């Protein structure tokens, strides 16, 4: 794995991290990716170590409205990434081409945010539709859980953490 860090991309206050538009349509659920912050794409680019995968590598439910690019591979992180908790639900990044909403059966719903891995997602809008049907309640849940998933993703994977480690000699050991 290439451990060399690429350019650090900072997020400034008031900036959009992700902007999506979801709409039920005659073909299914249309997902418009209007904005993905550069920091998210940079993270996936680093993780991928230059490897890419087709957008339909796990399922055939994503149908492009125009042309869709490939996605960054997260193969190296497959073991630690899976379904992750977020406020009011769960999210995942490892399921390209599959349903983006799994209703909670006696539990919380899971949203599939793998589309954030599109190559060039931060360059401009992308659109695809997901085959399947969604109730009005599902749309409300999807919107709510996606929102908290993006925030959680920021906390878990992007937020800079300053760790200060102070080491000092122990008085006790001196006495001994």
């Amino acid at each position, binding site marked *: 794995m290439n451990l060399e860090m690429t350019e650090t991309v900072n*997020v*400034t*206050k*008031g*900036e*959009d*991290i*992700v*902007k*999506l*538009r*979801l*709409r*039920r*349509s*005659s*073909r*299914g659920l249309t997902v418009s990716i209007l904005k993905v*912050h550069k920091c998210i794409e940079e993270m996936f680019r680093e993780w991928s170590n230059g490897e890419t995968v087709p957008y339909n590598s796990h399922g055939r439910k994503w149908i492009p409205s125009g042309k869709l690019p490939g996605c960054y591979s997260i193969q190296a992180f497959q073991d630690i990434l899976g379904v992750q*908790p*977020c*406020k009011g639900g769960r999210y995942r990044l490892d399921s390209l081409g599959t*349903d983006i*909403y*799994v*209703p909670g*059966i*006696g539990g919380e719903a899971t949203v599939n945010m793998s589309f954030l891995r599109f190559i060039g997602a931060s360059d401009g809008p992308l659109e695809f539709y997901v085959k*399947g*049907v*969604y*109730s*009005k*309640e*599902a*749309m*409300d849940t*999807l*919107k709510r859980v*996606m*929102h*908290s998933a*993006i*925030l*959680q993703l*920021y*906390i878990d994977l992007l*937020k800079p953490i300053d760790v200060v480690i102070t080491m000092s000699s122990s008085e006790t050991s001196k006495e001994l």
Partner: protein
Amino acid sequence: MGLRTTQDIGILLHKCRNRINMVGIELEGGWDSTRPLVNQQIIRDGSVKFDPPQDVIKAINAYPPTDKQIKLVEEWKAKPRPQYIGELPSPPIKPDIVEKWVKVHFPNFVNKTCGLHIHMSFHHAFHYMVLMTSEYQERIVEYLRLWASKEDLPRTHPLWERLEGKSEYCQLLYIADAQSRLERKAYDRNVPVHRYTAINYSHATHGTVECRLLPMFDSAEQSIRALKEVMAITNAFLVSTARREEKHEVLVKFDGDETVEELKESA
């Protein structure tokens, strides 16, 4: 705009343009040997039973049987009985073919264990999604009640029991989103997500909405009227709830680390 009133749907019944693309009919019952083509297509269905009546079962098991019981068993044996029992599904057909298909394939024997199911598909996924609300099931139940009253069905008719949610094969539950993602036809009714609901959203398996509320009626004509009523309520519901679909936006802004910290605490 929300759902219009019950009265609005009533006004639209049988008066609006058809929005149903194809339908599939499932007739349950018993057929005799005079229907060779039908026999080949009948699917076994454990819920359909043509067991002898209780007094006949008692007579069969009696030892020694009385003369009256022997006569009862002989009379029952002499009665015509179905040779083939189960479910006969139609291929996908246009709604205006339903009448003809049901007339040709109607079983020779029906009883209260037999169901009459209708699958409906739509030209646009959006129409399907409009029906994904508990209101649709409620309206179907409500208007089938009115229809049953107009038909003067006796209180003992199995339709009433089904409309009251007393049949385990068409429970008055609403689990549309989970149901629509079931990719296999399962037969367990005691799991959180199953297909045994009054309205079954069998999208992943058939691309259809299935109404399981109807029982088989004594005549093909009455069964056809019931099926037409379900289609009419569905079309009226689609028209009465027609509105422009709203867009859902998900926007996450970076508001500084304080906001993110708040979320972390509540997550």
